[in-house]
């Protein structure tokens, strides 16, 4: 039995809705709404204007900032607007709207054929940066930044994060079953770029079929495919590294501090597409699920397609949903409506029916200690809610290491008093940052 990490919870994974559904290609949107910011970091500036004709894969927004991700046209057609549009993460965001001309034509030079084995690390990272690849597990951190090894550090191992520990989501699961060759190529490219020989694939053991397929696919590559105990948040970077390598990323540090780089399954596929074929990140596989969806599916969908179009492709609603989520139920974001574009980081769209989203009314903390036992970071979440309630942010940061919290939600899941601990954490972090900024 593998050693597990401390804490964690066991929510019902509800993956059976879509685990056996092969990836279907969603129809192209009539118009694509493409935000210039689909990543953590600096927003891009549009380089096309209203009225321009663009082709699929063409660069339409970019920036010189290193921590950012290029944005490309996901369909061919005419730019009909550049303006503020609803965004699943930021409320609204500057977006480029392309009207579909129905031709779905590639921009010049795409796709191409490239022998990745002859490329060096710098050129691989350059291609990844140009292709606008970001972490597709949901965090959307620019991939080329993660792949760039700082001069004073040395990468020792690469880990493919195939845990997919969020309930409902099966996009990575299906990719592993259906696109194993591209995943293997993506992993090999990443390992070459990092200059590492040690590679691991971590898969939760609730996906035995994926473990089997991956083991076969990685045979002879030296990459070790590992079945991991199913426990949320197994897919959290720090927990994954701990379980696979036994190392703990130091508090306030990055995986690179222990010589490890972690990338998600979808990201590996995107790396493969970009490096071997020159295809930028313009589409992704995402899971449309939840009891309020008529026919839950895994779909391959272009960036800029709206939630509404994706849900319609899945037969529409079976009942009025109580909540619409982008991402999984543990860390995903509740959306007020469905006229939002699917962006690079949308790993799932969930429509939770009445009663499926079990929230409950918050009551006073009874100090039962369940949150302490559930916290994978070894923190005392109850104090975050108690201090947050009283606006004592500095105490939360200094005495209880608030900034170490990864907001995985395990504490809230476990809390019998239904305390909204993550809400207090986010609030306290923001207030603390504002206070710090004001002091400067």
């Amino acid at each position: 039995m593998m050693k597990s990490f401390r804490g964690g919870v066991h929510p019902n994974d509800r993956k059976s809705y879509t685990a056996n559904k092969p990836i279907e290609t969603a129809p192209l949107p009539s118009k694509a709404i493409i935000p210039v910011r689909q990543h953590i970091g600096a927003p891009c500036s549009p380089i096309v204007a209203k009225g321009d004709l663009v082709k699929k894969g063409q660069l339409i927004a970019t920036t010189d900032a290193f921590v950012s991700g290029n944005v490309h046209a996901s369909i061919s057609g005419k730019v009909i607007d550049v303006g503020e549009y609803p965004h699943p993460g930021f409320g609204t965001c500057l977006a480029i709207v392309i009207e579909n001309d129905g031709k779905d034509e590639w921009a010049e030079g795409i796709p191409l054929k490239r022998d990745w084995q002859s490329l060096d690390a710098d050129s691989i990272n350059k291609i990844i940066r140009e292709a606008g690849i970001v972490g597709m597990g949901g965090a959307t951190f620019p991939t080329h930044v993660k792949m760039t090894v700082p001069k004073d550090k040395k990468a020792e191992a690469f880990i493919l994060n195939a845990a997919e520990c969020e309930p409902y989501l099966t996009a990575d699961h299906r990719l592993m079953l259906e696109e194993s060759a591209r995943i293997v190529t993506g992993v090999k490219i990443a390992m070459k770029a990092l200059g590492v020989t040690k590679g691991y694939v971590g898969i939760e053991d609730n996906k035995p079929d994926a473990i089997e397929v991956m083991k076969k696919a990685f045979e002879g590559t030296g990459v070790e495919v590992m079945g991991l105990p199913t426990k949320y948040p197994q897919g959290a970077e720090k927990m994954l590294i701990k379980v696979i390598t036994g190392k703990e990323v130091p508090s306030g540090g990055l995986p690179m501090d222990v010589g490890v780089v972690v990338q998600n399954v979808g990201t590996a596929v995107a790396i493969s597409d970009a490096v071997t074929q020159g295809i930028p990140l313009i589409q992704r596989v995402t899971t449309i699920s939840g009891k309020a969806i008529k026919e839950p599916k895994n779909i391959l969908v272009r960036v800029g397609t709206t939630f509404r179009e994706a849900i319609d492709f899945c037969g529409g609603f079976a009942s009025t949903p109580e909540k619409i989520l982008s991402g999984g139920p543990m860390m995903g974001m509740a959306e007020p409506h469905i006229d939002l574009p699917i962006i690079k980081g949308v790993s799932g769209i969930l429509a939770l029916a009445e009663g499926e989203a079990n929230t409950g009314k918050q009551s006073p903390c009874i100090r039962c200690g369940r949150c302490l036992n559930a916290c994978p970071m070894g923190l005392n979440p109850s104090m975050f809610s108690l201090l947050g309630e009283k606006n004592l942010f500095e105490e939360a940061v200094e005495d209880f290491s608030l900034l170490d919290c990864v907001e995985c939600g395990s504490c809230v899941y476990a809390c019998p008093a239904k305390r909204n601990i993550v809400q207090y954490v986010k609030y306290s972090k923001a207030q603390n940052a504002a206070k710090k900024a004001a002091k400067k």
Partner: protein
Amino acid sequence: MAEVKLNKELFNVSVSPHIRSEESVSKIMWTVNLTLAPAALFGVYHFGLNALMIILLGIVSAVFFEWAVEIIRKKPITIKDGSAFLTGLLLAMCLPPTLPAWMAIVGSFIAIVVAKHAMGGIGSNIFNPAHIGRAALMVSWPVAMTTWSKMTTSVPDVVSSATPLNILKQQGYDALISTFGSASNMYQAMFLGNRSGSIGETCTVLLVLGGLFLIYKKYINWQVPVVMIGTVGILTWIFGPAGFLTGDPLFHMMAGGLIIGAFFMATDMVTIPMTIKGQIIFAFGAGVLTTLIRLKGGYPEGVCYAILLMNCLTPLIDRFCQPKKFGVRG
């Protein structure tokens, strides 16, 4: 199939996570009530109608006071969550069966109004409310609180109305054995509950079964009762009446309110440390204090005060027993 017409265009939003476990405060409280019920019912069977009156008045008045205070404090009414019910039940189970039943109402008042709500309500109280209620009655009506009844069941050898710990304190260990006839008779009586004592504390077997169920449900940590009862057992064995290692640990572990205290009071999550490490320290301290009061103090029994004293130390223990942080050495 007809298209589902949405009856709203905007959906609920909240911060993640969007799913929760099925656990709730009221589920925990009612489960604890349920696990206490067999021992309470045994107390009624064992001691008679006045015991029933005390239990009923204790519960009803506790729930009433909770409701009344919440009305006055303009707080949501939480009488259905089972916590006031539990306080009333626990208080009654720790009272002598001959107590004038109306005194239970006074105890409930102190427990709910003073010990719980004056401290800020559920989750904010420092002391175990039921034990504060009992302690208040103890100082108010010391005679009534130490007068014990004969049992209504006819156990041939058991004639004394004093509690076993009382006999031990006043007449010594030999007198205690002869009261029961033999040592094995005594153990059996104490295991099954055929002894004098507070209404709900006597039946070791039913209390332990209830406690085991709470451990199985993960509502309490097994370390707490094991450490507290174990500490009392070891210490009373070491410091026996005839010198070192002459004590009777088995007797002490089943005597007085230790079993109910260790399983149901020293595990009251609100008033004990949050980490297992802290809880073990708490349980050890409570065990030491219980032994100290029993062997050296003026009272025959010390569980109630031991737990209350350790409640004072809970914030301090919590401060030094935080969990080990991920990514921090040492």
